[in-house]
Every structure is written in structure tokens, then in C-alpha cells.
């Protein structure tokens, strides 16, 4: 037995490879079945475009560099409608340009994955410096009301893993899924072991089970997510960014509009339980809990361990899903901790949400940095020591 385990471990070690976060993202995408990528170079997401250019043709996929980011997401949505799992990657300025099409994909219910590797903003900002300044934009950047799923990795392996999950969720819900990485996670390299394809669960968009004449393109099969046949498979239907009826035809009828909006929101709001993705460390008896995500969660982890070593009862909640905000998970922490510290490389995005769901029982503290440098374990530790009751 012991030998087996040793062997396994040895095996694992031999499979450990050094990958950059952006490369890991591409590996995840390919494993999830991504076969179309359209993109436009931008620091610090460019490697995703470059590695896709190299890898996609090898698996029979299509890579295209478009004229800009608007075109990139347009092409991605088109390819997805034709049946291909599709993705693009960018950073802040390009992400801003993609907002109209993100809303389109929400409305037309087209699965796709958009990676935003966050650099310091606003505007052109600091192209090579890390930030978490796009968290609210990922939720609210496009006009009009919609729901959206946003994931954020804190390590190279998580970037790989969450890319797969981003595809899965986008297929499951028929909506764009956004991956918010930060420049540190995107550019650093770590030794990781990629799982084999068999160990990974892949989801595909629901397919109609009835013949074309019976298929109602935007009907609710109960899950809120209508089956989605690809263009060219006999199910001819209409896709539009206008409010539409069950067949996809434009409507302004209040009842139809309302029922469409209700269904669109239901896809996520009915599934919140399944979207509580987090890691927690030492939270059971924590007096103060650090809530963090992305590279800041890594600093948080180290700070928490050191604080524990000093006898401080502190814990860490690492969020992997940023949107929908994990109210349930966070509420549990708010109930059990005296204080919560939310360190972020922005002026306080997730901390706003924590405050919103807080019922006043817990003290919410923030630690924000927007100078283009990462939050360090020392900074978090110092704050923890300062505010420790």
C-alpha cells in the first residue's frame, strides 16, 4: 500500500511541469473542448493569444487574430452559435471594449468564455502591473440588467482548473463566463500536475431532444436553460439581442419581456447553491477571517499561517467565484467571526458586497492597494495584529 502511494506520488512528480498561468489557462481551455479562439494582443494577456495560435491548429481548432477586441468577441459568439466552444482573452482596455458583446451574449444566451487578465487601471494605467480593479466591471460593465458568472484563480493550477469550469458553466447556463485573473497569476509559473482527460468532467450545452418542428428555441425546459442546437444542424431559429419571445422573435410585449428576463435571471439565482466555490483555512475558530481572492489570497494564506504561529486565531476564506456573490458562504463567516478583513488590490469591490450582506454583527475591515504593487503577507499580517481584539 505504502509503496503504491509512493509510486503514485513519484509518478505525479514526474508529471509536474512548469507552466505559466496564461499557458495553464490555454491548457484548461483545450481540455474543456475549446476549439475556437479569437483575440487581440494586450499585456498581460498576450500569452494566451500566442499559445492558442500555437496549440489550436494542432487539435483541429481555429485561431484567429481579429482587428480589435469588439471583433474578437463577435467572432467568438458567432463560432459558439456554430457549435464550437469558444473563448477570447484580454485585459482592461480590451475588456471595456467587449462590454457591448458581453451583454449580447447574455441576451442571446450564447456560451463563451472571456478572460480578463487585470492590470492596474484606470485607462491604459500600468500595463505590466497587477490589480484587481475590474471586479465590479465584470459584473456591471455592460448596459442593462443581466446576471453573469465570474471566476477568479489564485494559482497557476486554479487558472487551469477554473478555465475548464468557466467553459462548463458557460455551457450549462448558456451565458458568457468571465475569468478574472490578475497579472501575477497570469504571468507567474508554477509546477503543476495536469489531470488526465478522464479525470475531468466536461459539460456541454443542452441539446434538443425533439425534432426541429417541435423545438422551441427560447422555451424553458424547467431548468431555465433552453436546449441549444448549433447552426446548420436542422434547427433553424432566430437569434437577436432584442427582447424576444419563445421563438426568438422580437417582442415589446410586457408579459413576454418579463418572462424572458425572469428566466434569464433564474438560471443563476436557482443554482446559487452550486456556485459556492471556495477554500477555507482555519475558519472554524477564527476571530478574524480574511476574505480574499486571486493573488491576494496567496498573501492572505501566508499571513494567516504566520499569525497562527503567533497564536492569533485567524482564518482565510478564499473565493473562487466572485459573481454571483457567494452570500451564503460569506454569511456563515460573518456569523462566526468577530471581524472580517477584505484585502483587495482595488478600492474595495468585494468588500462592498460583504458590507451589503452583513447584518451589522460583524466588523468589516478593508485593506486596499492601488499603486500597482501586490499586497504582501506582511501587510496583511500587520493589519491582523493591529486589529486583533
Amino acid at each position, binding site marked *: 500500500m505504502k509503496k503504491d502511494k509512493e509510486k503514485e506520488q513519484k509518478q505525479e512528480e514526474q508529471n509536474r511541469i512548469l507552466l505559466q498561468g496564461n499557458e495553464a489557462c490555454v491548457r484548461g481551455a483545450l481540455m474543456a473542448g475549446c*476549439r*475556437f479562439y*479569437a483575440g487581440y494582443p494586450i499585456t498581460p494577456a498576450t500569452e494566451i493569444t500566442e499559445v492558442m495560435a500555437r496549440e489550436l*491548429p*494542432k487539435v*483541429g481548432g*481555429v485561431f*484567429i487574430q*481579429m*482587428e*480589435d477586441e*469588439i*471583433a*474578437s*468577441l*463577435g*467572432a*467568438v*459568439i*458567432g*463560432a*459558439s*452559435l*456554430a*457549435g*464550437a466552444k*469558444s473563448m477570447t482573452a484580454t485585459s482592461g482596455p480590451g475588456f471595456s471594449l467587449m462590454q*457591448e*458583446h458581453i451583454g*449580447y451574449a447574455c441576451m442571446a444566451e450564447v456560451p463563451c468564455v472571456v478572460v480578463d487578465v487585470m492590470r492596474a487601471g484606470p485607462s491604459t494605467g500600468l500595463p505590466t502591473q497587477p490589480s484587481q480593479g475590474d471586479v465590479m466591471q465584470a459584473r456591471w460593465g455592460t448596459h442593462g440588467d443581466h446576471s453573469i458568472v465570474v471566476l477568479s484563480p489564485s494559482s497557476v493550477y486554479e487558472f487551469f482548473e477554473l478555465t475548464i469550469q468557466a467553459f462548463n458553466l458557460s455551457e450549462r447556463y448558456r451565458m458568457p463566463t468571465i475569468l478574472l485573473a490578475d497579472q501575477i497569476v497570469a504571468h507567474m509559473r508554477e509546477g503543476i500536475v495536469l489531470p488526465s482527460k478522464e479525470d475531468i468532467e466536461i459539460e456541454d450545452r443542452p441539446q434538443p431532444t425533439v425534432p426541429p418542428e417541435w423545438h422551441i428555441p427560447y422555451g424553458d425546459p424547467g431548468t431555465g436553460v433552453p436546449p441549444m442546437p*448549433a*447552426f*446548420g*444542424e*436542422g434547427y*433553424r*431559429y*432566430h*437569434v*437577436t*439581442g*432584442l427582447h424576444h419571445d419563445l*421563438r426568438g*422573435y*422580437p417582442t415589446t410585449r410586457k408579459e413576454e419581456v418579463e418572462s424572458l428576463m425572469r428566466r434569464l435571471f433564474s438560471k443563476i439565482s436557482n443554482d446559487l447553491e452550486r456556485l459556492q466555490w471556495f477554500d477555507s483555512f482555519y475558519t472554524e475558530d477564527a476571530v478574524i477571517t480574511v476574505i480574499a481572492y486571486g493573488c491576494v489570497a496567496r498573501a492572505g494564506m501566508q499571513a494567516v499561517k504566520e499569525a497562527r504561529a503567533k497564536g492569533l486565531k485567524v482564518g482565510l476564506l478564499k473565493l473562487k467565484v466572485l459573481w454571483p456573490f457567494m452570500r451564503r458562504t460569506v454569511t456563515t463567516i460573518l456569523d462566526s467571526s468577530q471581524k472580517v478583513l477584505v484585502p483587495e488590490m482595488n478600492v474595495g469591490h468585494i468588500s462592498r458586497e460583504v458590507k451589503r450582506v452583513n447584518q451589522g454583527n460583524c466588523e468589516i475591515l478593508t485593506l486596499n492597494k492601488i499603486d500597482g504593487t501586490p499586497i504582501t503577507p506582511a501587510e496583511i499580517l500587520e493589519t491582523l495584529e493591529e486589529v486583533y481584539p
Partner: protein
Amino acid sequence: MRETSHLVHKYLRPTMRFPHIWCPGCGIGIFMHALIRIIDRIGYSKDDVVLVSGIGCSGRLPVYVDFNTLHTTHGRALTFATGIKLAKPRLKVITIMGDGDGVSIGGNHLIHAARRNVEIASFIINNQVYGMTGGQCSPTTPYGARTTSSPYGNPEAAFDVSRLVEAAGATFVGRTTVYHTTLLDRLIEKALTKNGFAMVEVIAQCVTYAGRWLGLASPAEMMAWQRDNSVTVEKAKELNETELAGKTIIGVLADRERPTYNEECTKLRTQELKV
């Protein structure tokens, strides 16, 4: 009542409300009829045809016809179409864009699609005005024309759309009016069957807004204007500059061959993969 056009009934969606949304005498309907006619003549399976449009009066076309239809965002039809064609090369991808849609906000995608040579048959319904939003200037509105956004006359020169797209590298470029039915049919057919990026500029009347600066009231007058102010490429060669002034040259303006983007992709995947 006896059935009317058997042909269109085969392609129109019975679930849609007719008559369609366009104003009486709007040229878009004439183009739509021709498109259906040619698709039928070529014999594509409905399942294989994808009609992609942007936003505008012309953008409302796809919803009426029983293909795979996609009404995208303003100006971006070609980007979606590119994704579709590359992801599923066997589909016949067609885009319908307005002059504002395809040449103002969407001008960049137009020239890049032409350069890239993705096999898309694209039609720009050039009514020289923004119809949908109420008659503002477009990049093809004639110089000096009074529109709702140029009350003192349009200070800008108009694009020669076909020339621009030709310079951008399109393998097929044609221009016609909706009056010229035979040419319209011929250009649509050539564009649909072209192995490469094809663009046809279809001059069509916006009776509600574009008639104004021509001082023309009725659809028929506008079509008569189309008739009287166009010369064919062939004829144009015989005319001098003064004779050509103010005339629109119609016909096949470019027709040439080079590998499509899909063909290049296949090459990448097969021959040249050994880096």
C-alpha cells in the same frame, strides 16, 4: 384567396407577422425578394444558410426568412459571420448590413473581412441614410444633403463603398440598384457562389427619409432616379468625366482569386504544422 408567390412562401417564416415592418415601397423588400430567389435558384439547403445582420432597418431582414438567422449588434455582423464561417466552414454565410451599420460603425470590420478573405457573401443595403433612427447622415449621404443631423446640408463627402472594399482586397465587388433587377440577381448569385469574400453594394430607396434631398416623394420616383443615374461599368468606359459626373457605376467592379481564410487554416493544420 389564391396563393400568391409560391417561392417566397417556401422561405418566409409563417410564424412572423406580415406584411413586414418596412415602410411602403422601401427598397429592402425588393432586395430580400431577390436574395430568396437566388438562394432558391442555387439550391442551398435552408439548414446550411446562415443570415447575419447588424442593426438598422436592413438588419430586420433575417427574422423573416427560414434560415439560421442572426441579428447581431450595430456594425458587427461581419465579426459574428467570421466566427461562424471559421467554426463550420460548410455553412453558407451571408451578411446583410446597412450603410451606417456596415460602413460607419462597422467600416473597420468590412475592410478587414475583405483583407482576410473569409468566404462570406456580404450585402450592404446602401440607402444613403440612417433609416432606423430617423434619417440622419450616413457615410454615403451625398455632400450637401439635408438630413435630420445635417439641417444645413451635409458637410462631409460620401464614401465610394465599392472602391474602398476593392482597395481593401475583396475578391468580389459589385454594385447595383434595386431597380436593376437583372443585375441585382446576377450580382447576388456571383457573390453567393464566390470562393472568397464578396461584397455587393445594393443601392436601395429609403422612401421615408432619403427621398427628401432628392426632392422625390414616391418610391417609384426614387427608383426612376436609380434608373436614370446609373451607368454600367461597360458603358462607363466609353464615357468621359463630365458625362460620368453624378452617375453611379454599376456592375462587377472586381472579381479575382486568392486563397480563403478557411483554406489557409487547413494549410496550417496539415502541411505546415512542423514548426
